[in-house]
């Protein structure tokens, strides 16, 4: 009986460690400054929306646990278009440190041209189509 309990405990522990090492927890680890495996409101608010902290802190104990983070993050993997395994960089295109290619594109909302060599703050470009 004790052996079964030990195996069950070990399996649970391995599952938790594997989960916390997964890509979905990368941001969690970056924000967890004191490495206590929870996020305080201050750690959360370093770059995430402060108003969301209380929503994600489901048990209202003033910190976001790995379990609450998992529910918040809902990883997009599992074969969806926006998930998939990693193959960073490569395959052509400008590399880190290179200037943004000269490019002006029309905004769908107002037909204004947006110059992608003149950004004012970090700018995420999501290239894609419907299919």
């Amino acid at each position, binding site marked *: 009986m004790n052996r079964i309990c030990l195996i069950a405990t070990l399996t649970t522990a391995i599952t938790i460690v594997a989960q916390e090492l997964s*890509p*979905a927890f*990368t*941001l969690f680890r*970056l*924000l967890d400054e004191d490495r206590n495996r929870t996020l305080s409101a201050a750690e959360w608010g*370093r*770059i*995430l*929306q402060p108003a*969301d902290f209380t929503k994600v802190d489901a048990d209202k104990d003033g910190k976001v646990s790995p379990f609450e983070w998992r529910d918040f*993050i*809902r*990883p*997009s993997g599992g074969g969806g*278009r*926006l*998930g*998939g*395994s*990693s*193959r*960073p*960089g*490569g*395959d*052509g*295109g*400008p*590399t*880190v*440190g*290179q*200037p*943004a*290619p*000269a*490019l002006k*594109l*029309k*905004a*769908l*909302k107002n037909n204004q041209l*947006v110059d*992608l*060599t*003149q*950004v*004012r*703050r*970090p*700018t*995420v*470009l*999501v*290239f*894609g*189509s*419907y*299919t």
Partner: protein
Amino acid sequence: MRLQAAYDQFRDRADFYWIYIREAHPIGSRRPARHVRIEQPKTFDQRSAVATQCSGDLKLDIPVLVDGMDDPAARAYAAFPDRLYILGPDSRVAFQGGRGPRGFSVEEMTKALAELLLRK
């Protein structure tokens, strides 16, 4: 993390653009998409219309830019069929994601963006 969630979290500190490029699996291609049936747009207006439909159907609030019919954005960034990039405030590349679909990782982009914002 889904793209919309990343946008919701970081929109106050970073700009996001979804750049609508040439359809990857339109009707009549070797492997047409099954989740939605789309013709390859032949004019810029058609391309804009599909971008509007897609943005609405996927419930994405991210501002949309439409690539030109000679595909200047997809070519310049080698971004076909999908890809993520981050430009720094100096207008230089701060993160180069892998080419989709296998290389497309919102998690990696989010990590790079967080590191960029925490460095400031």
